[in-house]
């Protein structure tokens, strides 16, 4: 893997340059930007890491959930008496035991841990059992009898639009109007006027797109353990990405002071957004442990992970985009229907993101979008890697390809011409300080042989390009407050060790390693001398969680602030002994060095001893808050970020015209992450994102039974309506290594003034453009515009046949 393609000369804060870095790279062990092992890599590879389900406590009970077998129904009665009487059953709870409503977004608290009056989808939780073991708990769950009165199941946005006026067809009573969670309509500039202009002298593309929706499929299923001690302190250990919000909602739902709740996040086996909010299991283990006085564990089955879902929303999108003769984009207009599932989750934000995150790195002069999220009787959708913006990006980037085709401009050139630029205010009022789009496009263009190959390959074989941007955290926290979004506390002492305390969530993406890199860079310690303590609300400062690609930027700043305070103390203490200026004391490679006198050096341990002698116990804190807010209108803060990444993909595909199968043969991807603190991790994120995007194009197929349709008379097998067809990793296919093409990843570093060392996100952005790049490559290969994801062989073959018959008609 090559990196970096176009690296600006980096200037380190304490004056060393890229050349020094190259020197340091040779020893392979130090500071920023070096290729090194993740701090948790070895334990994970050897099976030492203890995930939530690996933990066990004396007397621990196992919990299981009774779930709804109906897509939409009123609960007439729940009989738990048999279950409760069973030997080994300690407690059974239902919705009335946990009636408080919660939800990640404070304005849309629309769910309860267990269903209270009605069930909203097949799999909705109704009751919970705690028993001596899983077998007993399962038997007790089977013994719970629920009586339902079926209600019409609302399974798509078309139906949701015309229902919800009465209680029987309202999916979630929280909806004020019909079945709408949230509607957003925003407009910037003279869209209609511009479209008019383009129609007369330019091109206008009108097109419909459908993104079916996908799920995260982290390999670790959700798991939580609750326990309450003698003092009344409730501890919940949970495989969550957002321990802080779990903490707040646990206190709220259980009626406990936040000070009596402790949330511990063990290492998490993948999240991708699927563990970004409080879930039924956390409330249930808490409540059951309070009732039984014993630790209680609940591990979701794979099927239950599908029901917890919060995955990518299905979106029906219409785009109208106009460009002038030179390909300059003048107007973009979209209308988007979002299929939300039974609960709001982050849905209010999703509706905004569907429009707000499209305004760069390719810019346009005017913009209007109208996005509405509807409730439906299916597992709730939410944030999946690239929350809210992957679907519109797919549509928009395909539209760009259509414009390029119509105007006879090379697709890469079209994007270059419309590049927003650096340090610009985007059309929706959001400030983008830096964007490496051009460098990204150049990198993939060269590596893929675009100029020589695109449009020139034999039929069935093609190349496609697409690009995107993504946020590095949001300026505005989920609940309005002026406190830091991330805090870090650092302690160092005479042992030579540095301990970093942070509430950041490590879901595999590596904040622990980022903290270690910062400690190494700032304090000169060796990697193995850094300890990282993550995410235990009793021990670590607050961090809002692993979502919106916020961690590196926000936690990074907080860590930098704390480390720099300590560095000054260490430099100062050593300078006193060496009788030099503190600036002349350099820290690196486990040593303090004299900048001007190479004979002088001491170990960091000795330096820390000097500092401890001089300043007493050593510790410092840092915190990150955003100063900017975003556009000055309602919703203008949503999607406003301190820094925006940029990505470009080129995909090479082969389309088999006999089977309709699309083979992605190779992908080139370049991503501007500002500054790679750990290049190996950044590459991993770029590759993983690309892999995930390609999976969404070609395989992941989230199908629900939809018989009978709304208004039809149910037949004897009517319960099929709303059933997720195949909630398992056998039926819901994610690619194996054999199905993953070679991915060539390039790190582009265009530092952003708002990022720590210039760093921006790398975890979500590199997913977006992989999908439209494949779609555009299919067009290059066989001249088909595929607009409905996923591109299953069945759909592709049908489209190919249609193409063949219409071209043979044309020939007649």
């Amino acid at each position, binding site marked *: 893997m090559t990196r970096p393609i176009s690296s600006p000369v980096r200037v380190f804060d304490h004056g060393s340059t890229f050349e020094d870095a190259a020197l340091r790279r040779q020893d392979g062990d130090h500071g920023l930007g070096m290729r090194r092992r993740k701090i948790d890599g070895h334990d994970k590879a050897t099976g030492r890491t203890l995930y939530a389900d690996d933990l066990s406590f004396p007397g621990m009970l196992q919990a299981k959930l009774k*779930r*709804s*077998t*109906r897509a939409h129904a009123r609960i007439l009665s729940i009989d738990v008496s048999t279950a409760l009487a069973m030997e080994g059953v300690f407690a059974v709870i239902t919705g009335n035991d946990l009636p408080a409503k919660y939800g990640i977004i404070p304005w849309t608290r629309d769910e309860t841990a267990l269903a209270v009056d009605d069930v909203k989808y*097949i799999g909705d939780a109704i009751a919970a059992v705690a028993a001596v073991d*899983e*077998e007993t708990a*399962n038997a007790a769950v089977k013994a719970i009898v629920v009586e339902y009165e079926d209600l019409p199941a609302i399974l798509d946005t078309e139906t949701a639009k015309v229902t919800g006026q009465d209680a029987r067809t309202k999916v979630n009573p929280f909806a004020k109007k019909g079945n709408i969670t949230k509607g957003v309509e925003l407009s910037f500039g003279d869209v209609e006027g511009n479209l008019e202009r383009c129609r007369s002298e330019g091109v206008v593309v009108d097109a419909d797109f459908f993104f079916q929706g996908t799920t995260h499929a982290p390999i670790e299923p959700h798991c939580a353990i609750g326990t309450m001690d003698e003092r009344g302190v409730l501890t919940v250990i949970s495989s969550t990405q957002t321990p802080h919000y779990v903490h707040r909602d646990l206190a709220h739902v259980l009626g406990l002071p936040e000070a009596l709740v402790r949330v511990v996040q063990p290492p998490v086996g993948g999240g991708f957004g699927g563990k970004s909010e409080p879930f039924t299991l956390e409330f249930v283990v808490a409540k059951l442990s309070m009732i039984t006085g014993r630790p209680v564990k609940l*591990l979701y*089955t794979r*099927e239950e992970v599908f029901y917890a879902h919060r995955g990518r929303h299905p979106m029906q999108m219409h785009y109208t985009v106009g460009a002038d003769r030179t390909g300059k984009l003048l107007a973009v207009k979209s209308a988007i229907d979002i299929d939300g599932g039974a609960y709001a989750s982050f849905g209010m934000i999703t509706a905004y993101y569907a429009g707000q995150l499209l305004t760069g790195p390719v810019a346009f002069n005017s913009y209007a979008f109208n996005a509405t999220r509807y409730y439906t009787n299916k597992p709730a959708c939410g944030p999946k890697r690239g929350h809210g913006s992957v679907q519109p990006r797919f549509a928009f980037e395909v539209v760009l390809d259509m414009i390029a085709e119509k105007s006879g401009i090379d697709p890469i050139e079209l994007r270059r011409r419309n590049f927003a630029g650096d340090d610009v205010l985007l059309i929706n009022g959001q400030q983008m300080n830096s964007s490496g789009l051009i460098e990204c496009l150049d990198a993939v263009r060269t590596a893929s042989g675009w100029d020589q190959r695109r449009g020139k390959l034999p039929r069935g074989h093609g190349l496609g390009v697409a690009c995107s941007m993504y946020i590095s955290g949001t300026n505005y926290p989920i609940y309005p407050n002026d406190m830091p979004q991330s805090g870090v506390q650092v302690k160092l002492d005479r042992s030579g060790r540095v301990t970093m305390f942070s509430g950041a969530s490590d879901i595999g993406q590596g904040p622990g390693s980022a903290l270690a890199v910062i400690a190494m860079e700032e304090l000169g310690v060796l990697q193995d001398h850094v300890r990282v303590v993550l995410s235990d609300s009793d021990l670590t400062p607050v961090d809002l969680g692993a979502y919106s690609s916020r961690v590196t930027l926000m936690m990074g700043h907080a860590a930098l602030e704390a480390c720099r305070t300590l560095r000054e103390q260490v430099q100062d203490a050593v300078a006193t002994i060496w009788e030099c200026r503190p600036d002349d004391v350099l820290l690196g490679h486990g040593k303090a060095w004299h900048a001007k006198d190479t004979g002088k050096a001491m170990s960091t341990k000795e330096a820390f001893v000097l500092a401890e002698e001089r300043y007493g116990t050593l510790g410092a804190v840092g915190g990150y808050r955003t100063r900017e807010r975003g556009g000055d209108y309602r919703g203008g803060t949503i999607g406003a970020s301190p820094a925006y990444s940029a990505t470009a993909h080129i995909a090479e595909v082969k389309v088999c015209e*006999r*089977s*309709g199968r699309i083979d992605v043969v190779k992908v080139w991807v370049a991503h501007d992450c500002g500054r790679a603190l750990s290049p190996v991790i950044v590459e991993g994120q770029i590759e993983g994102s690309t892999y995930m995007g390609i999976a969404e194009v070609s*395989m992941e*197929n989230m*199908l629900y039974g939809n018989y009978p349709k709304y208004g039809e008379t149910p*037949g*004897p*097998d009517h*319960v*099929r309506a709303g*059933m997720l*067809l*195949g*909630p*398992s990793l*056998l*039926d819901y*296919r994610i*690619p*194996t290594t*054999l*199905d993953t093409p070679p991915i060539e990843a390039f790190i582009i570093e265009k530092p952003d003034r708002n990022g720590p060392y210039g760093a921006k996100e790398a975890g979500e952005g590199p997913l977006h453009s992989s999908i439209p790049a494949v779609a555009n490559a299919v067009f290059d290969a066989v001249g088909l515009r595929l607009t409905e994801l996923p591109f*299953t*062989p*069945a759909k592709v*073959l*049908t489209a190919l046949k249609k193409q063949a018959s219409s071209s043979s008609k044309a020939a007649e």
Partner: protein
Amino acid sequence: MLRMDPFLTETPTSVDEAVALLAAHQAAGRSTKVIAGGTDVVPNLKHGLFDPEVIVHIGRVPGLKGVVDDGGHLLIGALTTLHDLSVHPLVQQHASGLARAASLVAGPQLRRMGTLGGNLALDTRCLFYNQTYFWREALGFCLKKDGSLCHVVAGGKKCVAAASNDTATMLLCLDAEVVLQAPTGRRTMKLEDFYVANGIKNTVLEAVDLLVQVRVPKAASRRFEGYAKLRHRNAIDYPLLSVGLRVDVDGGVVSAMRCVVSALQARPHKLPCDAWIGRAFEHRQERQDVVDGLKQLAFAKCVPVKNLADDVVWRREMVRVLVQRAFDEAIGEAS
């Protein structure tokens, strides 16, 4: 994690002991289930599809593993793993299509656990059946287990779950025989007679029977054999469709020909190929003529039903494509 209901386990160390144990438990009114590699039985137990009181684990019975050549046949022990089968020199030499079919089952771990006997006795599969108890309950269950209606064929009174075993398709093409051991003795039957068109149970295996050996007759003349499997992923996935093909050629003409299409319904579908006997099969065009005819026949006869999530129209289209692929495989022109 999904759990299994409790059961008693028996681990016999000989074939006789195994069948005696099966018979004894059956006689005492206890339901039994044989388990070899367990790669089908365990998931099915977790899904509540089987509810035996006694599991008879035959994995440790000696003498049921390996491949020998008795001159006229390959004799393959029922406990031979799919991995061993796929790499065995005798199998590669005399039944290359079988080696290939075995190599395409599931993934490497499962092929090292899964046995040939287990593959032949694999339970039929259906989107509405191979699911958890909860899911099937929400569905209202189905004919094959716990319920009374079929979700594939509206109003259907017969289960049409799909035979999904890769090796069976190919072994049927090779005119294989199976040797069954019962408490009353051994019997040998054609594999063709082993399968019946009933999705609830698609074999004639009785609860007290043990499949001990598979006999594959060796080719008497030049043989072409090929196997093609339709799946989305290049590992793990069960077939969405599978085609086995064998053409024996003697004196430049077809002397025997078999084509089996499976993963359609409960019984692998054997296409009538006798019409091609005596047809020239030397030159490229002659061969292509044969396969073109075969493709037409297969398309006409094989109509997939909605027992899998995939589009049935597409699966049907793919019948022709797979016949061509099996043919390309057979004549060594795999694309």
